[in-house]
């Protein structure tokens, strides 16, 4: 079998060696609490502020507009709950889409229980929202629009610039869950008119459990975690020093060679897509053919179920993911696949291969080879495929 082939980079990524090297001294040498005034403490404070600056620079934000959190989910919760509660005198209506991450959707459900109204925008077969539907949805009670930058399952990139222009015209805050986009796509929060943006380091070769929320200066938002005076009094808790330093290093690395990296990834991605579509029948590509994340491949194999596909791939040393219900312990397949119009039985046969910096062309070839075998084997076992062959 040889080396393990990791094609689930949208789920998480390994911490790059350069990132880990940067982090290490902060565990047990430069371990001072950034709030402490002695030298060991102010050294830590400096490290936090330099990290904040690095992240701000990449996004063209101001340094003081970056707030560290424990990851994408906290950032999403903070953005939504924080803006909702701080602006409830202005209105109680929030607009989002049907294909957001659960970090957004479940938070919206919570806000609904607290008296907020939520509109969930539809998406088309490629996963794109409809800008006209968005415009029509805005009322004088709308306080926030939250549309993800790029979808974690099907990779579709939304027309963020247009969304934020509409939000700005109507004087509504615009938040984007950019957890899958930061580190992978060029983002300028000013050019794109973004008010709040969520990110998470482990999606771009930084450590797990650290993220940030960009909050444009002047945006009215309550804290989610109150307490100490950290993060300009807006997010309490002793700073996760090594992870903050690691996140900054990781984002720097990600944007250092973004264009070359992405060119390579897109080539790999398109090769993988092409080979799958050519060599296997009854398969369809999910997500937008062009406006998609550089590393994202998402396909549905009819007549087979995703979990057995993943287990079979794992047996060959290949890590991937699926939107099948069986992989999550829930009964429903992925809400994203249903939202783009897939029938349940086809959604169950979905496979996401998300490519990253460490994947090679040889791996792509190997994976396709194995996929052909596995799909054939599972279909041979499938009573659904049998019917097709018999022409029923």
């Amino acid at each position, binding site marked *: 079998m040889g080396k393990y082939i990791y094609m689930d980079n949208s789920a998480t990524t390994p911490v790059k060696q350069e990132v880990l090297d940067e982090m290490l001294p902060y565990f047990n040498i430069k371990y001072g609490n950034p709030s402490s005034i002695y030298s060991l403490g102010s050294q830590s404070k400096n490290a936090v502020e330099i990290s904040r600056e690095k992240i701000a620079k990449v996004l063209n934000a101001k340094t003081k507009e970056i707030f560290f959190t424990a990851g994408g989910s906290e950032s999403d919760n903070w953005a939504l709950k924080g803006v909702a509660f701080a602006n409830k005198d202005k209105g109680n209506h929030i607009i989002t889409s049907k294909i957001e991450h659960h970090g957004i959707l479940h938070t919206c459900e919570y806000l609904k229980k607290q008296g907020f109204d939520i509109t969930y925008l539809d998406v088309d077969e490629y996963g794109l929202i409809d800008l006209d539907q968005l415009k029509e949805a805005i009322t004088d009670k709308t306080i926030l629009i939250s549309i993800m930058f790029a979808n974690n399952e099907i990779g579709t990139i939304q027309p963020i610039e247009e969304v934020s222009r509409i939000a700005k015209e109507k004087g509504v805050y615009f938040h984007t869950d950019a957890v899958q986009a930061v580190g992978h796509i060029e983002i300028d929060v000013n050019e794109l008119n973004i008010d709040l943006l969520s990110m998470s380091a482990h999606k771009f070769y930084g450590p797990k459990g650290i993220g940030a929320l960009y909050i444009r200066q002047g945006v009215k938002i309550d804290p989610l975690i109150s307490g100490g005076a950290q993060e300009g009094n807006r997010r309490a808790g002793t700073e996760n020093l090594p992870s903050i330093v690691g996140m900054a290093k990781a984002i720097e690395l990600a944007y250092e060679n973004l264009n070359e990296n992405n060119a390579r990834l897109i080539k790999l991605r398109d090769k993988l897509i092409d080979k799958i579509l050519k060599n296997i029948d009854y398969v369809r590509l999910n997500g937008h053919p062009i406006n998609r994340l550089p590393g994202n491949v998402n396909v549905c194999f009819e007549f087979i179920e995703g979990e057995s596909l993943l287990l079979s791939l794992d047996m060959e040393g290949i890590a991937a993911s699926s939107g099948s219900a069986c992989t999550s312990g829930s009964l429903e397949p992925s809400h994203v696949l249903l939202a783009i119009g897939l029938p349940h039985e086809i959604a169950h046969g979905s496979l996401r291969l998300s490519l990253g910096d460490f994947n090679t062309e040889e791996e792509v070839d190997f994976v396709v080879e194995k996929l052909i075998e596995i799909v054939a084997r599972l279909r041979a076992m499938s009573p659904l*495929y049998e019917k097709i062959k018999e022409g029923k």
Partner: protein
Amino acid sequence: MYSEKVMDHFKNPRNVGEIEDADGIGEVGNPRCGDIMKMYLKIEDGIIIDVKFKTFGCGSAIASSSMATEIIKGKSIDEAMKVTNKAVAEALDGLPPVKMHCSVLAEQAIKSALLDYSRKNNIQIEGLEDFNPNEDVHEHQ
């Protein structure tokens, strides 16, 4: 997540396939829910002399089907009727709680195939009076 037994039956499922001239065929599950099991029985003198299955579903669905066929092969109809989902799960050294419905599906596939046999041959099988092959197995979780 899965026991070695489950993985073994998933990797090398026993009795996969169809029986051309089956005496009883049962199909349970629902593609919407991501699992369909189809079971073929060859019965002679009240004994299940051959059994095959086809399954669309997750790893534990495939393993449960495989294990169920192993258990009932060579058994009498009465013995096969006594095979519970728990027996299938136990024979697999257990299933994760969220996957117990797969073993229920396997039990139902057996019963469903036996029901088909009983109807075709116009006989009564004790225990199948109230059996409903279309019952939603996910309720059993």
